[in-house]
């Protein structure tokens, strides 16, 4: 299968990258786009190591030419299938490439609180009448609901703290987005490569005052696109 890392509109200036499982990284022409790919006998597993190699390949290409990062896990059976898929969305992909391909992403978030549950828990009782009783089922649900409310309150507090501490970074960034990641609420910044030094310095200063964590520069995953259905 063809593993797709990224899309560009011009060939990288340097070749010889090693991708997932050490497979050589190549480019496949598809209309006005170039797919940055590697070939595998079967689809690479979604492991942390593979995800990091995927990101590192995109970062390496992104240092050479404007690059649109592709979410890990998209595979096509062969070159023709990839070309067919890209042809369907070429205009939108080129627009996205022009919008974010020249930039990098930083993230600022509060330090993780491992005790706070991040996985949503069920809060609705079954409609079998048990919810009206004071039995163990109701207690269980109430405890889960309390945990969920506590987690939401913690997220709200973290979101407010990150927002207040990083408001001054907005003017350096091209765009700002908020999302909830594995470690809680975070603010994501799309930053022009020419401004990374200034942004990194300002972000480090803001983080030091607020007890926050700064990540990046990374390929602009958050700003490139996301699957919504």
């Amino acid at each position, binding site marked *: *299968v063809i593993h797709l890392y990224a*899309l560009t509109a011009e060939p990288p200036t*340097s070749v*010889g*990258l*090693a991708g997932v499982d*050490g497979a*050589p990284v190549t480019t496949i022409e598809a209309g006005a786009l170039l797919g940055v790919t590697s070939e595998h006998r079967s*689809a690479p*597993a*979604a*492991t942390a*190591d593979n*995800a*990091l*190699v*995927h*990101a*590192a*390949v995109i970062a*390496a290409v992104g240092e*050479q030419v404007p690059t649109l*990062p*592709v*979410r*890990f*896990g*998209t*595979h*096509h*059976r062969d070159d023709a299938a*990839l070309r067919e*898929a890209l042809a*369907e*969305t070429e205009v*939108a*992909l080129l627009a*996205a490439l022009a*919008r*974010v391909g020249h930039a990098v992403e930083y*993230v600022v978030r509060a330090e993780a609180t491992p005790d706070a549950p991040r996985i949503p828990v069920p809060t609705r009782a079954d409609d079998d009448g048990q919810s009206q009783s004071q039995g163990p089922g109701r207690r269980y649900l109430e405890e889960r609901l309390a945990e969920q409310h506590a987690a939401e309150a913690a997220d709200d507090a973290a979101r407010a703290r990150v927002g207040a501490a990083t408001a001054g970074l907005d003017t350096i960034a091209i765009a700002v987005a908020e999302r909830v*990641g*594995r*470690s809680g609420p*975070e603010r994501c910044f*799309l930053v022009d490569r020419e401004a990374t030094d200034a942004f990194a310095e300002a972000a480090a200063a803001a983080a030091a005052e607020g007890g926050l*964590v*700064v*990540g990046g520069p*990374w*390929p602009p*995953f*958050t*700003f*490139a*696109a*996301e*699957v*919504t*259905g």
Partner: protein
Amino acid sequence: VSDDSAPTAPTFVPVGAADGPRLGNDATLVDLIDRVLETGVTISGDVVLSVAGVDLVYLGLRLVLKGIEGDETLP
């Protein structure tokens, strides 16, 4: 991440390589992995969701771009 590929990949700097990580520090690698697996452009094609090396789901996806300037659902 292994650096087995280094001899044949002059521009590829594995995470944790001696000349410095390209992708950040250990404290934020989980944030990066989160992005790699959850965000980025998705092209219509086959997506494999795996746990512990076992492919659990293999499905086709349609592309929906959600850009910074608004949503754009593709045909």
